[in-house]
């Protein structure tokens, strides 16, 4: 009846996950009870859960990423403490628990923190920057988000029902095959990634189509803001690379469920093919994450330097070059597998070449700042912190791209330090910069600057104190993923790293406090102009938060930095005073399709993990029926009458009039 599921799946003998799970469960129930008791449920359902508005979906993506960041961060804290205490002892985490923690940490941080954070920011901002009213496929967008949430939910269920993979974040066979991992851990891993992979793929298709097909009048490719270009490149990579991940995990699942031998040791399976395929996805994946961050920094650096981006066209070229070259370097993740000097040399050189367009970008940002009137607001602090940190991470990356050096450093703590250096210093700093920068746009009030600065400095310093010691430990020969060790020379560095982790944690708490303080002081921090930073691109041309239709009129773009041009233009000709001719606007209707599909996908995923076959059929049929009902809908749009559009737009025009007379100084 219930497949492999019975009471032994609940880890009653392990207090840590059980207590954590109980606390989370109580918290969720308390929030739900509060929502129901206060009568917020209808609002939540109609305005958020079923919303197909790209801005709201973007906000929900970022909320998901933030919650999962706390989960992945807790795993990180536990690992740092374990390695600080586990010198010539077992520490406080038994090996099978420690292995689950580092696997969950990697999986969560990449798939359920970094990915939703950058996809959320792209969703929130790109249609606004392109001057359009929504993404190309609004309901599909909602389906994509809820599928990602399903994956995150399944990973979290594994905390209390069953176990998570003990195989590392990429589940290398033969360890991840049935003979070595007979439990449900790898199944939790694979099915949550398959389901959230569907979500990522549709988000990618959606954003590529949006950038290619929906641009406002005059928004040529070479007038698009840099963030739109990096979004295009990143989503092209999603569309090209994620099918490889899906196919690879499908083959692993066939091995595990139906006795195939793709990656087994025996019967002609080839373990090395798994490494090859997973990294053919995995390397483009790191550029999927970091390219949008590069776009965010381009926007932030240009805005806070008060200058147009230096070398816009070289930046576009560098972005697209990275997009293509990222598919030519994947072997550098397994130089030591033994493909030989010819293969290693070619891929090593390609890996060094990809640093060139990245270096071009760094110089472009520096030259954008040069001679500018720089304001060190919180987003700009993250951008400058990124430049310093990312250069260090990039240089250690070029070092690792040299095959002989990689033979020494492969799978050591040096590698761990390197990829945290580029992912935290690149992607996470970028996500935080984007969060601080676009928060006023999404919610209509700024974030508290004092707490923002404090959070930045603690995170920045905490990062260095945590990860620089790991470089040294790696040089001293410490391998990654050690549950305990007996080498005295490593011990001090592990203790320093644990201290750094504490500083990092203060930084994260600082950001939570910043959010709470800002929400409390929101009236004082209110931005009525829609343009709090004296911005340059079109998202600042509408109110904050933008109306559901984004723009009362499709903006007419006449050059790069479209909104900056408009401000200059309006100041010279006082065009703000004309009385425009408002028209009815058609917008897509909200739809529960995404949420209901994801509900059934959760049931199906859980049933697949536990081999409950009748429930698999039930979930599959439910999801399919939801799709059919959606496909048969009669009314998919509603009309906002011209008077309403006028009423909403006039308020914004009034607020903005004062701004235009001040800003837009050339």
């Amino acid at each position, binding site marked *: 009846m219930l497949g492999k599921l019975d009471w032994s799946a609940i880890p009653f003998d392990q207090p840590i996950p059980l207590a954590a799970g109980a606390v989370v469960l109580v918290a969720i129930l308390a929030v739900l009870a509060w929502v129901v008791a206060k009568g917020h449920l209808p609002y939540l359902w109609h305005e958020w859960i079923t919303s197909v508005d790209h801005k709201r979906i973007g906000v929900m993506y970022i909320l998901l990423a933030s919650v999962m960041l706390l989960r992945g961060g807790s795993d990180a804290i536990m690992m740092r403490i374990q390695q600080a205490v586990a010198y010539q002892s077992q520490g406080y985490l038994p090996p099978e628990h420690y292995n689950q923690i580092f696997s969950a940490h990697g999986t969560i941080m990449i798939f359920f923190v970094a990915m939703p954070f950058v996809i959320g920011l792209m969703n929130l901002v790109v249609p606004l920057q392109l001057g359009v009213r929504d993404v190309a496929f609004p309901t599909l967008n909602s389906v994509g988000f809820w599928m990602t949430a399903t994956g995150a939910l399944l990973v979290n269920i594994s905390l209390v029902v069953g176990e998570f993979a003990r195989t590392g974040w990429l589940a290398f066979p033969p360890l991840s095959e049935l003979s070595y991992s007979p439990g449900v851990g790898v199944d939790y891993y694979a099915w949550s990634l398959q389901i959230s992979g569907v979500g990522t793929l549709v988000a990618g298709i959606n954003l590529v189509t949006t950038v290619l097909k929906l641009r406002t009048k005059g928004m040529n490719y070479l007038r698009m803001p840099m963030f739109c270009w990096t979004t295009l490149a990143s989503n092209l990579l999603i569309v090209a690379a994620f099918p490889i991940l899906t196919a690879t995990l499908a083959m692993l699942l066939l091995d595990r469920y139906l006795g195939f031998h793709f990656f087994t040791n025996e019967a002609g399976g080839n373990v090395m093919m798994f490494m090859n*395929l997973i990294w053919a996805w995995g390397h483009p994946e790191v550029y999927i994450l970091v390219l949008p961050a590069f776009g965010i920094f381009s926007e932030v650096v240009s805005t806070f330097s008060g200058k147009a981006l230096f070398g816009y066209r070289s930046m576009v070229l560098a972005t697209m070059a990275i997009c293509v070259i990222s598919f030519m370097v994947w072997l550098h993740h397994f130089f030591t597998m033994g493909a030989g000097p010819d293969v290693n040399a070619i891929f090593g050189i390609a890996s060094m070449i990809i640093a060139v367009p990245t270096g071009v970008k760094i110089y472009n940002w520096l030259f954008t700042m040069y001679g500018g009137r720089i304001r060190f607001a919180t987003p700009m602090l993250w951008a400058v912190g990124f430049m310093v940190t990312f250069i260090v991470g990039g240089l250690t990356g070029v070092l690792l791209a040299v095959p002989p050096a990689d033979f020494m450093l492969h799978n050591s703590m040096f590698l761990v330090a390197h990829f945290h250096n580029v992912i935290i210093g690149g992607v996470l700093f970028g996500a935080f910069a984007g969060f601080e920068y676009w928060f006023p746009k999404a919610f209509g009030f700024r974030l508290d600057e004092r707490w923002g600065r404090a959070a930045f400095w603690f995170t920045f310093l905490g990062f260095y104190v945590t990860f620089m010691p790991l470089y040294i430990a790696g040089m001293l020969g410490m391998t990654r993923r050690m549950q305990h060790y007996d080498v005295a020379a490593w011990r001090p560095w592990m203790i320093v790293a644990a201290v750094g982790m504490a500083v990092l944690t203060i930084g994260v708490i600082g950001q939570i406090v910043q959010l709470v303080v800002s929400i409390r002081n929101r009236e004082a921090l209110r931005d009525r102009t829609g343009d709090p930073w004296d911005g340059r691109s079109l998202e600042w041309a509408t109110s904050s938060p933008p109306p559901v239709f984004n723009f009362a009129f499709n903006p007419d773009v006449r050059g790069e930095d479209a909104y900056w041009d408009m401000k200059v233009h309006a100041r010279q000709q006082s065009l703000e005073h004309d009385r425009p001719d408002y028209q009815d606007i058609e917008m897509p209707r909200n739809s529960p399709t995404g949420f209901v599909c994801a509900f059934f996908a959760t049931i199906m995923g859980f049933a697949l993990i536990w081999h409950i076959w009748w429930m698999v059929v039930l979930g599959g049929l439910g999801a399919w029926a939801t799709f059919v009902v959606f496909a048969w809908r009669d009314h998919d749009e509603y009309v906002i009458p011209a008077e309403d559009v006028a009423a909403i737009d006039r308020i914004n025009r009034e607020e903005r009039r004062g701004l235009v007379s001040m800003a837009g100084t050339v």
Partner: protein
Amino acid sequence: MSDQTHARTDHDLAPGEEEQHSVGARILGYVVGLALALLLTATSFFIAGTDLVWQPSIPVALIVLAIAQMGVHLVFFLHITTGPDNTNNVLALAFGLLVVFLVVGGTVWIMAHLNANMPPMDQIMRMQ
């Protein structure tokens, strides 16, 4: 929403969006495509079994026919043209082909070298 899409359609059409042709002309296009595809398929089966041509030329002929088949599909069914309204589709095809070429070609190359350099343990034992 809709006004933006319509404003752009005269520059850039997705496959199946062409409105200027009549239904008859479009059906004719599909019929011609189907006929060519069937002809190429039949020829491939015929060539594979025949002894009328020089035998070593058969694999080459099959490769040529397969590429022609892909071309027929792209032109008649996926509506890839060289027209200026089709730039996005051609670029998407080129990017897709490049990625497939890199991943498949790279994989074959890497795995061939691995097979040569890293034989299974029992083979190494036998060599010693």
